[in-house]
Structure formats: C-alpha cells, structure tokens
C-alpha cells in the first residue's frame, strides 16, 4: 500500500508519464500494478462526468482522502488533464478549451441527465446466419419522474441497403411505465438489449418519436419483432458531448496498463453553432 501511496502522489503532483511508467515498472508484483491502475482508471462515463465537474465526492478525491486525510492536492485543472488521451497530440484549441471550462466567472460543467450528449453504440446482430453491425445512437431523456436512455438515431448499416423509401408503418405507440432502458445500462454495455429487442418489443418506449416514423427504423423494428435479427453484443461505445457551447468532444475507452486509462477524451473540436448542428445531424443521420 505504501508503494501505491508514493505513486498516487507522483500523479497528483503531475509528474511526467515517463517517471510514472519507470516507477511502475519497478514494482515487484503484478497484483500491485493492478491495484494502482484501478485507482486512476476512469471506470465509467459516470466517473468521467464526476471528474470533469470536479465533484467533491468523486472516486479519486475519496481515495486521496482515505490515504492522506486530505484531497487538497487535487485541482480541477489536474482532473481535467487526466481526462485527455495522452497518446494523442493536443493542439492550442485544447488550452483554450481548458481556459473556457475553468473560467471562474462561467465554468463549464456536464450533467448526466442532460439530453445533448450521445452514446454511439455499435451493436452486433445475427442476420441470415451472419453477423451484421447496426450502430445505434442513444441519449438520456427525461421521462415520468426520472430519466432513461432512448434511441435517437440509427446509423448506416449493410442491413439497410435494400430498405424501401417508405416502409409500412406500424401503429406502435404504446408505452408502459415499466418499459424503458435504465440509465445504468451503458455500464454493462447495454446487455439489456438482449431482452428489449424481442418479439414483444414496444418500440415507442425505446425509440424517439421522430425516429420511429423513419423507414429505416420501421424496417429494423419489424425485423426485431419477426425475430429475423437477433441481438448478440455491443462491440464498441463512443460518447459524443454537444453540451458545452462552442465545443464538441468524443470520449472513448482506452484499456491499457497505465495511469492514463479508461474513458478519455479522444477528440475535441472547436465549432460554431452551424458546424455543431451539422455534426449532430450527421451523428443522428
């Protein structure tokens, strides 16, 4: 545990990655390495948001308090820096992004229950005995007393190459209070799709009304209900944040035995409102 403490301090005091890497490589047991990386890993997008906002109860602050009885050595700037994929070269725009997010007069924050950040989920289905990818785009939506994940877009896929321009519409408008995609589903890679994409699927409970009327969605839901396609698993998830004015950024998971690991910012774009709208339209197709 003493070794972990030293390494923890190294990162908190913002030492270079090289020093950390060298120190880690001198550790005697693999078990200790694993301990160490888990502390720093951004384990879920929820933790990403907590760190981004410098939540006083975020995991890394709590662990620091448990080890040193204080978390005063952690600053929001350090936490933000820890959320960038350090393998990527970052431009001057990144410095401006930091400057704007950390602006004391108008700081930028994210909220899990906002609806303008999106999960781009590459789902693998079984169709005609072959695996086929169907990328779905989901976002958080307020519903009833709470929130839920809702499918807001279906991206291009081989599955849709022969979809008629106007597919027959179903009158699927029923929504039961118990039919929803829980806001925790992303943490288990939407394993919930295994029982949502079934013969009895109430499509209106899971698809945005605007999307539901589109030929691609009608075709997809019909295939699901006829059990002609079967959900297998999620291959990959990316999160796109359109929350902060003037910026769009993407968060992806990096699995590596380093301190810079987990859900990290993989791309950051400075955009004007029109560009932002175009990017969003492209994502939602």
């Amino acid at each position, binding site marked *: 545990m003493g070794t972990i403490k030293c390494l923890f301090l190294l990162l908190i005091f913002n030492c270079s990655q090289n020093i950390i890497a060298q120190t880690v490589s001198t550790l005697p047991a693999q078990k200790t390495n694993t301990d160490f990386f888990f502390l720093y890993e951004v384990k879920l997008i929820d933790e990403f948001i907590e760190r981004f906002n410098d939540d006083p109860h975020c995991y890394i602050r709590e662990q620091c308090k448990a080890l040193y009885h204080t978390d005063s050595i952690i600053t929001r700037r350090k936490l933000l820096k820890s959320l960038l994929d350090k393998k990527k070269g970052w431009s001057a725009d990144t410095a401006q992004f930091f400057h704007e997010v950390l602006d004391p007069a108008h700081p930028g924050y994210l909220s899990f229950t906002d609806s303008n950040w999106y999960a781009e989920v590459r789902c693998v289905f079984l169709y005609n005995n072959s695996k086929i990818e169907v990328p779905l785009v989901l976002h958080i939506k307020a519903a009833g007393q*709470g929130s839920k994940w809702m499918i807001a877009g279906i991206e291009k896929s081989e599955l849709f190459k022969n979809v008629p321009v106007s597919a027959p519409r179903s009158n699927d408008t029923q929504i039961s209070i118990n039919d929803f995609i829980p806001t*925790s589903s992303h943490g*288990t890679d939407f394993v919930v799709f295994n029982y949502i994409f079934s013969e009895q699927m109430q499509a209106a409970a899971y698809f945005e009304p605007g999307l539901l009327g589109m030929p691609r969605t009608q075709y997809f839901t019909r295939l699901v209900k006829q059990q002609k396609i079967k959900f297998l698993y999620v291959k990959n998830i990316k999160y796109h944040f359109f929350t902060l004015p003037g910026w769009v950024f993407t968060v992806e998971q990096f699995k590596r035995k380093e301190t810079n690991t987990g859900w990290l910012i993989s791309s950051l774009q400075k955009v004007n409102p029109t560009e932002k709208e175009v990017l969003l339209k492209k994502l939602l197709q």
Partner: protein
Amino acid sequence: MKFSYLLLFVLFMPVLGFAQKNEPLKTSKVSKKESNPEIFIFPDNIKFSKEELNKRVQRKTKALARCITILAEKKDPNYRSQVNVAMKLFNNDDRKLVSVTSKKNPEPVTKPVRKYFNDLAQLHYDKVSITWHNAEYVSNFTKQPDGTYTALVAFEQEFTGTKGGEINYTYHDVTQKRIEVTVKVWDVKENGVVTKEYMDVFLGNIGVTEE
C-alpha cells in the same frame, strides 16, 4: 409556533432543493450541474443519504462474492437452494444477465444470472478465495421513470480456485465487474394501512471483463 414553522422551513429547504434535481436540465454553461445529490427522496417522502445507499450496495456485492464462493466450492447435490439464496440478491429477477469478456474470448458471452450460478456449482473447487483489490466505485443514483433509482458499481476482484488430489489444479483470474444496482422502496399494508416501509438495494445485470 410561527418560529417553529420558520425553523422547519429553513431545515427542509435544502431537501426541497434536492427533490428538483432529476428534473430536465437546461443547457447552461454558467450554472454547475448538481451531479451528486446527497439525499434521495423516494415515494412517500422516504429519504436516504448516498453514503447509506453506497454501504448497502457494498453489502450486496460482498454477499454476491460469498454466494459465488459457496457455489463454486459446493459439492452438495442440493446446490439449487443456494442458487435461490443468490437470486434473492437480484430480486428473483430471472431476466438479469451476466456478460463475460475474457482474453480468450473478446466477444462477450452472455447468460442469465441463474444459469451463471448453476454453472458455477459445477466447478467443484476444493477451495475458492475472492479478494477485492480496491474500494468499489459507486456511481451517482439516477431516478428512473418507474420511481426507482439505479446506479453502477465497479470493482476489481481476484478469484482463485484450487482442486487438490491427483488433479492439483489452480484457476486464477483478475476481473473487473460492473453491476447495475436498483433501489426499491415498498410498503407493507395491513387492512389498507401502511404498517412498515422497506427499502432495499438489488443487484442487476453484470458485466465481467478479464484484466
């Protein structure tokens, strides 16, 4: 009397504030979004602190580890009773799933939790040890359309199972587990009158990734 009302109002004002936090939020760069409400208000105004909920989540994950140990070591043909004990942690919901990704099989293998437990009972290890490497991460709880709250718990576990005798075999892995958790509150009514209020944390779908 007036002073008492004023005092009560002042005391409960923060609670009223927390109750608003799951309302749709406006996109604003100026105001800090409250991402970590410390108090959760359930129907009938039952309140729990996040610390209390986190403790309950941790108790359930420890209970799950105990069940896994017993099942993997169990040689009793009546192991199904232990599977039933384990399923109580999942509110006896047979729809809950376990999805496992290993180094050998990067494509996830998904099965119902009950089947996962039944399969564990076929392992027949002589000794099983499960250890935690770090404190669990518990995400914030978010209110669902049906009034329940859900969160995610993530932790790293080391599993070691040994078989002695002629086989003399040891299986060892380090996995990261992510479990969906749900908090439910319900009333017990006698003659139409609520006599007791219960709250419990149930485990949900599980994602397991080999490190």
